[in-house]
């Protein structure tokens, strides 16, 4: 792993890093990956990983909401006429 890899990951994760932070992260990543890489060599029975996941369905019914609409709107960092305002996407 090198600084370019860190920059690419930061770009994918939408995080800005200063040059000093990149160096720190690179060093930390090397330490952590060194520690976790033992997992690659562990011998386990050759089975598909089970993610213990199953869909939990509910009926598509309209129910009164317990959420406070007012409080949700108040959280918007920028709003206009109760609509959330963001920069243009396209």
């Amino acid at each position, binding site marked *: 792993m090198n600084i370019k*890899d*860190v920059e690419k*990951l*930061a770009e*994918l*994760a*939408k*995080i*800005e*890093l200063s040059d000093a*932070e990149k160096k*720190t*992260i690179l060093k*930390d*990543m090397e*330490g*952590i*990956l060194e*520690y*976790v*890489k*033992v*997992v*690659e060599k*562990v011998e*386990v*029975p050759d*089975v598909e*990983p*089970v*993610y*213990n996941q199953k869909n*939990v369905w*509910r009926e598509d019914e309209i129910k009164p909401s*317990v*959420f*406070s609409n007012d*409080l*949700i709107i*108040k*959280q*918007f*960092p*920028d709003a206009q006429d109760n609509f*959330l305002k*963001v*920069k*243009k*996407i396209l």
Partner: protein
Amino acid sequence: MIDVKDLTIEKAYEMMKAGELTSVDLVSLCLQNIKEKNNELNVFLEVFDDVLDQARIADEIIKSGKGMKLTGIPIAIKDNILITGKKNSSGSKMLENYVASYDAFVIKKLKEHGAVLIGRTNMDEFAMGSSTENSAYGPVKNPIDPSRVPGGSSGGSAAAVASGMALASLGSDTGGSIRQPASFCGLVGMKPTYGVVSRSGLTAMSSSLDQIGPFGKTSEDAKIIFDCISGKDEMDSTSVGCRVLDTRIGCPTPDRRKIGVPRDFLKEGIDPEVLQNFEEIIKKLKNKGYEIKDVVMPYLKYSLPVYYIIMPAEVSTNLSRLDGMRYGTRKEGADVFDSYKKSRSAGFGMETRRRIILGTYVLSHGYFDAYYNKAWKVRRAIMKEYEDIFKDVDFVMTPTTPTTAFKFGEKKDPVQMYLSDIFTVSANLAGLPAITIPSGKSSSGLPIGIQFTGPLFSDESLFTLEKDLRG
């Protein structure tokens, strides 16, 4: 004069029922302790301005004879559990001014029981850390020795109970974040079976691992909280409840008396005093008629490396929702992507960035199979290993942490910090319930804890072990 530090929920309940104590008195004592100590210890990020009103309402309920065990009892809440109309920052600048628009399931339950929610406690940012040094609002200090960490990530919730600022508290445990601070602060801390307590309203960190659980001075206190907050909730699709399943496998069983000790796992990196205490507890349990048996669990040692692949992967995806668009910190950039970047960089601390980047790495093309997929296979082997062991023994016992509470700044290297969770993470990976119980003190007076892990849905029986350790 009542000292809240020595008062249990059970005792307070009896006193309030008998009219010897009111909730207003009790809450006032906690507020006094907060006033005297919070500046130094940095336990509460906010003490709610309506606590005395809550206490007055509780006193009315008690007077009317409808009080329950938690009615009027002051409980501290970790800052990642939502309470309608209250701020909820998860220890992060990203959510510094975020106000919750609904109650977490566990909060709804506490309110139904008339508990007094006293305030929100400090924590490692987004519950990532083992010392609270990662909080954006400064670290919490350990009430037993303020030069040391209280543990983390639920360090504030542990310190609140240990310093008499609340009678009990709620924390969240993704890899040990309840049990490790409970151990460092001399408390009982419990992580329930995955699915027994709803996470609706818990700020998600790592969804296949997160559980909410109680801190108390005793197992009885922790159990009172657990009984209140557990149960099925349709708002959390991983919620299964516990009563039904308890009956199915015949829990609780107070006669579970066979305990396994994974000796091979206890060979390195443990403080000699912790190990000595562990041996003393084994002796004590044997004297009480428990059968203690060495067990071989070869996959257990891979728990922490597996955890540090799966957890950051889930963190990187879970925290992608925090982009400053709908709520939280927003910093405007040149375009929408630039705004994401600027907002996330302004909002996230170093450990959060580190884990997001690590998670992004293990999930990226070319590494997915080697890391993430493989980690899940090993996780499954760990689950199977526990399943097999529990055919033979009722509990598995280890120290809760390899050391007692360490000093601030002592663990600068991330891996060194991560190693404080070496004994706790496997319960999260396997979804099992686990409890830490105070088991003694080191020569310098720091608390030591012992951890018991039980089979799935054996939550109730974990609370029965402490009474045999006391006597």
